[in-house]
């Protein structure tokens, strides 16, 4: 049901520019105003959210340790420097692997129950989610970078490099990009998982399906433009360069598929800061990953530590239990506390 809502909504989003652009005056709205506004929303929303996180305190240093810590004898008990970092540099490498290789996800296992002369709980390595995720994210990332050819003039060398590597199979004309296939495949796999796996389906909201359908629609509209509609790329570059040089112009040669694509991307940008897609900056800030495991050796400051919270005083303790303590032969700071009350009163 949630999936259906999301799908219908994305269809609706496709229809808006399809019909909207036909009304002649709206070409600059869809070509310039909407994407620029969406970009500003993205930028401001993104910064605002990250600043919100930054303003929230980090009272305790609580990394999740995933291996042996730095021992008193590192030779006898070698430290797992990546999963249990003790220094800033080690933590940095842990984060690099987390961000670029999805290391925690790579650890994933799947549980199954069996009966074999009694109960058996079995665990097997399960790297599918990791594979789907890495396919999707890297494809998306490279696709996004390749788009720089439309926003930069002259085009930097690495964009040429990406275009060459991405099209290395030289299939068809225009050459098929591997990441185009990877992106669609990645989204479909992630979607399929959400639809088919009952457990994952159970925890999915419309807001989980929507970004997947939206990104799928973005990818498909892009693919349609490149391989089927064969839009006038030079006209498009004139428009996109117009955006980044602030000389807005919508050439007549640009056709509807482009507006659909741009509109969907605009929706994605505007939606991003208010959604779970913020896991992108969020992963960098996660206190269980980005802190060294060193609080036993180095002082960490809790900005709101309350010095007024103190231990129940020993003096009060001795006052309360002094008599039996004295009887039991336990030493007292104040011997008067050891005198039974009735005697003291007397």
């Amino acid at each position: 049901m949630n999936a259906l809502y999301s799908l219908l909504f994305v269809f609706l989003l496709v229809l808006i520019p399809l019909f909207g652009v036909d009304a002649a005056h709206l070409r600059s709205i869809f070509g310039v105003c909407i994407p620029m506004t969406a970009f500003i929303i993205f930028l401001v929303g993104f910064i605002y959210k990250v600043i919100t996180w930054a303003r929230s305190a980090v009272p305790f240093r609580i990394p999740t340790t995933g291996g042996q810590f730095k021992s008193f004898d590192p030779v006898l008990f070698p430290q797992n420097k990546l999963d249990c970092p003790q220094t800033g540099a080690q933590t940095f490498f842990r984060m690099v692997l987390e961000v670029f290789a999805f290391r925690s996800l790579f650890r994933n296992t799947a549980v199954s129950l069996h009966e074999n002369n009694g109960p058996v709980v079995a665990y097997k390595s399960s790297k599918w989610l990791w594979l789907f995720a890495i396919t999707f994210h890297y494809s998306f990332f490279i696709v996004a970078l390749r788009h720089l050819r439309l926003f930069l003039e002259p085009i930097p060398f690495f964009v040429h490099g990406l275009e060459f590597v991405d099209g290395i199979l030289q299939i068809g004309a225009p050459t098929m990009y591997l990441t185009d296939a990877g992106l669609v495949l990645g989204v479909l796999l992630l979607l399929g998982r959400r639809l088919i796996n009952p457990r994952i389906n159970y925890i999915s909201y419309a807001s989980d399906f929507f970004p997947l359908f939206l990104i799928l629609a973005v990818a498909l509209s892009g693919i349609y433009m490149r391989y089927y509609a064969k839009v006038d790329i030079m006209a498009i570059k004139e428009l996109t360069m117009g955006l980044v040089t602030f000389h807005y112009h919508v050439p007549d040669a640009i056709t509807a598929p482009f507006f659909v694509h741009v509109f969907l991307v605009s929706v994605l940008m505007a939606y991003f800061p208010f959604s779970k897609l913020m896991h992108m900056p969020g992963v960098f800030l996660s206190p269980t990953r980005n802190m060294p495991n060193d609080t036993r050796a180095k002082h960490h400051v809790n900005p709101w530590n309350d010095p007024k919270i103190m231990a129940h005083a020993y003096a009060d303790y001795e006052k309360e239990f002094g008599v039996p303590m004295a009887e039991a032969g336990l030493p007292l700071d104040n011997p008067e506390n050891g005198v039974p009350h009735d005697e003291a009163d007397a």
Partner: protein
Amino acid sequence: MKMHYGFPIIAGLLIFVVAITAPFAVGKAVTKQYKQPEPKKVVGEKECIESVEFMRTEHMQLLNEWRDWALRDGKRIYTNHAGKQFTISLQNTCMKCHTNKAEFCDKCHNDAGVSPYCWDCHVQPEGLK
């Protein structure tokens, strides 16, 4: 506005913002104003093998098909949408008019950031460098 571990966060945020707004800075400072490239007009012939609009968007597909027809099927005659016939040959048909790669092909290909692999096999026309 008190921040906690603000420095690395702001630094990271700054890197991100600079990276995604870089095209605006480059556009303003380097490109200034962008105009579509104008490939060198052909003198002599009035019409290409298909309409200009068709050629702008479909030439890569056409060339791809020409290669297959000529080399794999041995078919050497192309009939265009208007019914006119041409010899399928990059060297003898296309490059008869479009003699200069730098002034024709590269004009758009450079700006679009594409580098077709035509010249992996074909003899490169003048103006390569």
